[in-house]
Structure formats: C-alpha cells, structure tokens
C-alpha cells in the first residue's frame, strides 16, 4: 500500500473522517456554487449533516448539470486557483470541463500512486504510460501518480504501436498503463515484430477507460506474463484513481477517504444495501476545484460485501459492465449515438437514418456507422458518393475525436422503428457480461 495509514484505516475512524470532510464539502459548494445552493434550497436541506445517513436526502447531480454549466459554471474556486483544465470529448452541448487546484492535483497524484502500488509497483519500476496525454484525464492522471510513487515514468501516450514495443523492449518497461484493447494490440504487434511479449521485463499492467471482461484479463496476463488490474475513474469525479483492484482482483477498492460511494436503486434512487446492484453515485470529499455532490455516473454495479484479504478497509466496487444510458466507449473515448445523429443531420445528402455497428477486429474495437444515402443525392457518379462518405467520416472524427469507418448503405435499408430506434448494434459480445 502507498498510504497504509489511510488505505487500512479502521472503518469507524474512516467514517468519522468522511463525515467531517463531507460537512466541509457541503459548506464549500453551498457558498461557492450557485447550482448547489439552488439545489439544496429546493430540496430543503442545509449544508450540514449530523450523520452519513442524513446525506441520502440530498439532491443528485447529473451530467446535464455539468453540461449546462459549460464551461466553468460549477467551479467552486476562482480561476486564479485553478491550475489545470481537462474535458470530456464531444461537440458543444456535450462537453464538460473540469478544473483542478494545486491541492487537487496533489491528492490526485497520491490516489494514482496508490493504484500503481496496488498493481505491485514501487519506486524501482519503469512505467510506460500509453494512455492518451491531452485533454483526457487518463494520460496526465497516470503520469503524476507514477512520478509520485517514484517510478521512472515514460510519457509515451497512445499510438505508434511499433514504437511502443521498441520502447518496452529497450527501456525495460516493467509496468504498462493503457486501455485493455490497446494492450492486446501491443502484444500482437510485438509478435509481428518478432518480439515475444512474455520475454519482456513487464511484470504488471494497469488497464481501464473501457469495460473489459475476465476473459480479456486472462488473455492479457497470459500474453504478457503479467498481473493485470482494472482501474476505474471518470473525469467528473477525478479521472483515473477513483478505484482500483488489488492483487486479489475481486473488486476495485474505492478511495473512500476522498469519495463517498453510494449505490442507488435505478427506479427509486434510494441507496441499496451492500451487495445489491444499482447506479453508482459519487461525492467528492476533498476536491476544491469542481467538487460534485451525489453525482450519478450512469454506471451499474454493486459493492462487493465483506473484507478483502489484502488488508485494505476501503470497500470494493464490482467491475462495471453496463450503463443506464446509451453511451458507448470506443477505444477509451466516450461516444453518444446522439452525437453522431447531430453530425449527420448537418450534412446534406445524408438521410437521418443511421446505425452504429460495433465489432471486434482482432483485439481492437471496430466501429462502423451505416448511413443511408439520402433520396435527393444524385448517386450516379461514384466520386459524389466517395466525397459524401469522406465528408461524413471527417465530420464525425472532428466532432467525436474518434475515427469511425463510414459505410454508405441503400436508402430504406436501415430498420425503421415505431419507438426508440435501435441505433447501436453491438456485436462485440464482451461488453455485455
């Protein structure tokens, strides 16, 4: 453990710490964030609780609250105290911006260091960080955690897979951090290059940003000869570092000294007992920049009951395998089918009928958008069709920050529906466990 004094804190003391921090948080947001002041007033709650149980009467925060506040409406500190900005992907109306104070970044580094330590990392390790650096929280999040732990950190970011393999080999990487599908691609590329992934110095991997199955974990561990752990986070709450597996691999320990986790019934929104499934809700206890109160993640999971053998007293969140909305995660990027629809409606020649088809090609997600050629398109010339396809592809890539293959299909060939259109055909099979 990186911080055993917290990670194995006695639960009575932990809950006292949570309560104290929660009251600090409630006062901070009531004072500084108009959205929360309004929500609390409307719900008839004062920004003070005598017990954690009382917290269940507080209002929730949803993604739309953050979107409506774009860009800085939910920040709780003045901009001069913000030293880092990150955002989620998407076109205007979908993007959310998060801000961090120096203190927030310091905590984030500690939480991420805990994660790498849980994977088996120490200051002797060499971490190859193949999460994307940039506006996404993955790259820099893992980076500062690795440095905090004292690891030699390689800020290689994603892409250029042959170089990933070369670096892994030449630099003697011991810990790999990237999405699980990218890990499999790296392994495959290594073999194509005549490099045996098992013979590399790798001993552990930290994988997340997209759902992945036990089968995939077994595959990754086998192909690299490493121990692979799942990590969980979201930018609205922090980034990576919210929760992570330990070597027991039976649930992800949530950093409960910094987050309150609740599982609520998807219909009634009432908290459910440990062990029951529901929507995962987080409250940040120590973030100053953009704290969130009872943020509904739309992820569905449950708390794994009981004590973990590793000695950590933080409760475990079971691996997340489903969502309550239609958001897709494609190669680590969040995509809403409605974003695709928005792009298509803005392009003349394309009918507003489309279907996103997800499949697996080897280890990577392959995404295709099937788009109907509109009735007014003169499709006599192939160059017209090619240009249309190129335009749709470019606009989707620009709006969604992810490349999706576009396939033009015959008019009227996409199933029409009376009710909610089935916009997404997920043939990958692993996401829905």
């Amino acid at each position, binding site marked *: 453990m990186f911080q055993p004094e917290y990670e194995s804190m006695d639960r009575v003391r932990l809950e006292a710490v949570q309560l104290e921090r929660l009251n600090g948080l409630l006062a901070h947001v009531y004072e500084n964030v108009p959205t929360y002041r309004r929500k609390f007033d409307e719900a008839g709650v004062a920004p003070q609780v005598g017990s954690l149980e009382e917290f269940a009467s507080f209002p929730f925060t949803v993604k739309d609250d953050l979107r409506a506040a774009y860009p800085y409406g939910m920040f709780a500190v003045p901009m001069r105290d913000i030293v880092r900005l990150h955002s989620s992907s998407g076109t205007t109306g979908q993007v959310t911006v998060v801000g961090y104070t120096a203190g927030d970044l310091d905590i984030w580094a500690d939480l991420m260091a805990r994660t790498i330590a849980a994977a088996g990392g120490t200051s002797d390790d060499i971490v190859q960080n193949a999460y994307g650096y940039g506006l996404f929280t993955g790259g820099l999040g893992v980076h500062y955690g690795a440095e905090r732990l004292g690891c030699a950190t390689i800020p290689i970011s994603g892409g250029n897979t042959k170089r990933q393999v070369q670096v892994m080999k030449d630099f003697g990487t011991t810990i790999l951090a990237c999405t699980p599908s990218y890990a499999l691609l790296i392994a495959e590329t290594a073999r194509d290059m005549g490099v045996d992934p098992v013979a590399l110095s790798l001993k552990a991997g930290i994988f997340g940003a997209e759902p992945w199955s036990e089968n995939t974990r077994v595959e990754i561990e086998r192909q690299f000869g490493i121990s692979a752990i799942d990590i969980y986070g979201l930018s609205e709450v922090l980034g990576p570092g919210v929760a992570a597996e330990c070597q027991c691999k039976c649930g992800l320990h949530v950093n409960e000294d910094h987050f309150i986790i609740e599982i609520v019934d998807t219909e009634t929104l009432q908290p459910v007992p440990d062990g029951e499934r529901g929507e995962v809700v987080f409250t940040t206890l120590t973030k100053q920049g953009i704290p969130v109160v009872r943020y509904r993640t739309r992820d569905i999971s449950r708390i794994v009951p009981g004590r973990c053998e590793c000695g950590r007293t933080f409760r475990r969140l079971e691996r997340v395998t489903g969502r309550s909305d239609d958001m897709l995660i494609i190669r680590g990027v969040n995509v809403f089918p409605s974003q695709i629809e928005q792009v298509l409606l803005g392009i003349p020649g394309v009918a507003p009928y489309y279907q996103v088809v997800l499949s697996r090609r080897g280890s990577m997600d392959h995404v295709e958008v099937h788009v109907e050629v509109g009735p007014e398109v003169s499709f*006599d010339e192939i160059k017209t069709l*090619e240009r249309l396809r190129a335009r749709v592809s470019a606009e989707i890539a620009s709006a969604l920050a992810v490349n999706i293959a576009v*396939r033009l*299909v015959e008019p009227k060939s996409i199933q029409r529906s009376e009710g909610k259109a089935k916009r997404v055909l997920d043939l990958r099979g692993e996401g829905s466990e």
Partner: protein
Amino acid sequence: MVKQLTVFLENSPGRLARLTRSLGDAGVNMRALMVADTAEFGVVRIICDRPEDAKSALEESGFSVSVTDVIAVAVPDRPGGLADILEVLGSEGMNVEYAYCFVEPGGEAAVDVFRVERVADAMRVLEEAGIRVLRADEV
C-alpha cells in the same frame, strides 16, 4: 440525349439478380447494363426501352433509382472511331465522367454512351463536328 437509370446497390450477393429480375417482371428490355464497383457498394447504370416504367418497377421493389441524362453517339466501325469522338470533346475542355459501349441488336453499329457535366453544350459540339448523336428512341 438518353435517359439512363442509376441504382445504388450494396455489394452483397443477390442484389443484382433481384434488380434484373424486377426489370424482367416489369417487361422492361435492357439495352445496356454496367456495374461500377467499390468495396462496399455498386453503381448500376442501365439503358432500357422504357426508363420511366423501369424506374417505377424498381422503386416498387424497394430500390433507389435516379435518372441521369447521358449522351449516346453512333460510333463508326473502324479503328480510331471512338478516339475521334472523344478528341472532339477533349479539345473543347469537356470532361467525360464515365463511358461505356454496346453494340446495337443486329450488330450494325456500336453505340457509345457517356456522361459529361454540360450535356447541352457537349451535344452541340458533337453535332457541329458531324458526329451522329442518337435520340432515345434510336438506342
């Protein structure tokens, strides 16, 4: 000037058969059929005796059809016959988007069909050069 039908078809087995069967069932006789392919779709171009009926029949069968004006010319049956015609267009700066040829029933003359941007101008230029441009009923 001739009305050519264009059908957008997904590149999968059976589509072309279905298309031609629809035409056959409607009593349409095709003069020429050309399929241009890409990896994912095909563009099928058809010259037939009754383009309007053919269009209705295909649309009823669920196909998407567009009608394009193309130029059909009689090609002299000698080496260089087609080159002479295409050089006339090229010298006037007219680009041929695509072209295809077929032989009339009876085998007397060859017909070249091509698509240009400015149909009326192209027809005038060809007629001025003494090239025989065919009417729809002559094809």
